[in-house]
């Protein structure tokens, strides 16, 4: 058996992760140089240490936030795509809805969290509503434009062959919108978990955002950063996974 090619592996590792490594080393060095109290600013190794030695505390909260984010993501994408289909069927609905969605898609959503919290109450349903709203806009916008961009000439072919409007939707417009929906998924998936966390942080109910707020207030800064580290890893993985899905969908549908 040949020994593992260690050098190329290291080179590859540095090439791929030099930015993140640099950031972590700079953080560690910065805390060391200023000899901060861990309450003010812990080192990345201390944060990792807390994460490894108390996995149970993180585990429950991660589960809750992850479930809300996943559920909200699916619901938001379904509502967004559904409304885009309604707008595709009816020019009047599309005329009424389009400017409103353009308006809303540039609204700073975090500003709406307190308003929604007052309407729905300070509990999980508000966190879910925020995730649905965050994911709704990209899926509506991208699905709408995708439904309207079938390959040139294909729509005429369907008309000539006497396809009904429903058949046109199912066999042409929806497949044509798939790559766009995959882009929407990529944009929304990373933000879903972060939005859920901000909402939990503001309302202090359950989940990773709550863990962050509570440990921060109790001066358990290491654990607060541990919660953020977990959220970062999940969000970055969601972004990468959605990127992979997007690639597959593009290969299949275009």
């Amino acid at each position: 058996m040949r020994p593992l090619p260690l050098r190329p592996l290291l080179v590859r590792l540095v090439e791929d992760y030099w930015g993140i490594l640099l950031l972590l080393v700079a953080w560690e060095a910065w805390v060391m140089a200023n000899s901060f109290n861990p309450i003010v600013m812990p080192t990345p190794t201390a944060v990792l240490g807390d994460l490894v030695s108390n996995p149970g505390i993180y585990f429950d909260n991660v589960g809750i936030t992850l479930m809300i984010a996943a559920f909200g993501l699916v619901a938001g994408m379904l509502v967004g795509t559904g409304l885009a289909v309604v707008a595709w069927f009816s020019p009047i609905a599309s005329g009424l809805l389009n400017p409103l969605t353009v308006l809303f898609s540039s609204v700073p959503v975090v500003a709406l969290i307190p308003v929604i919290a007052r309407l729905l109450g300070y509990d999980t349903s508000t966190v879910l509503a925020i995730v649905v709203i965050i994911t709704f806009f990209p899926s509506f916008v991208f699905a709408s434009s995708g439904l309207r961009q079938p390959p040139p000439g294909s729509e005429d072919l369907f008309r000539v062959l006497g396809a009904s409007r429903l058949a046109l939707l199912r066999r042409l417009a929806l497949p044509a919108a798939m790559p766009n929906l995959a882009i929407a998924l990529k944009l929304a998936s990373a933000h879903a978990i972060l939005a859920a966390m901000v909402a939990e942080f503001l309302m202090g109910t359950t989940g990773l955002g709550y863990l962050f707020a509570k440990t921060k207030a109790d001066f358990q800064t290491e654990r607060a950063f541990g919660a953020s580290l977990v959220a970062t890893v999940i969000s970055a993985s969601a972004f990468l996974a959605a990127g992979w899905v997007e690639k597959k969908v593009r290969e299949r549908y275009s």
Partner: protein
Amino acid sequence: MKQTLLGALGIAIFLALWEVVGRTQLLGISWPPLSDVLEMLADPGKYALFRRALSATLESTALGYAWGAGAGLILATVAHLLPILRRGSDRLAAVLNSVPSIALGPIFLVLLTRESTPAAVSSIHVFFIVFVSVGSGLQRATPAHRDLFAVLGADRVKRFARLELPAALPSLVSGLRLAWPAALIGAIIGEWFGAPRGIGILIINAMQNFQIVLLWCAVLLAVAASLFFYGLLTLLERAAYARFG
């Protein structure tokens, strides 16, 4: 023309529904009628409060926007000119974008001051969007164009300045447009970590003191600030596409 009319009608229906739901208290006292909110916004006694909050937030947003856009543009250009750095910088940007904004607040609070934390959080949001859009824009020049430049004997620097940079302008401007609401969100979240004033502070205080109408006023101000500059940047984007698209 018909589309514009329908759009205006859609917005009018939305505003009318808002007023009716507020008047009839269909959703309880947390949903005030639009007219009450507008009345408070127009109240001269509240004018100084709103102006102070809005100008503080806009200042942080503009500062974070400039820093973030500059950093994104520079890193994307460096990664384009030195392809060996490309994969690492892509991953760095993706991870920075995945850090929860509420975790950025405490970090910048130690690194900087209470006053500059909103701008710093905002700049991270802007950085990612500009980095991604410039990165993909710089690759938009077609192989035929590259070949032409090679045949005419242009060196790497000339090709970048005369071909790739102009080709990247439309997507840079699109990125700048999308980055504005993100910058505003960053500034508002950053303000929660002890900024002396701002829209984010107004929102939190109104939320905790059950000042419902004031809360809606603050939200409307944030929305207006977002829409106004988003509109301006959309116009800029159209001009860029017309010239370089």
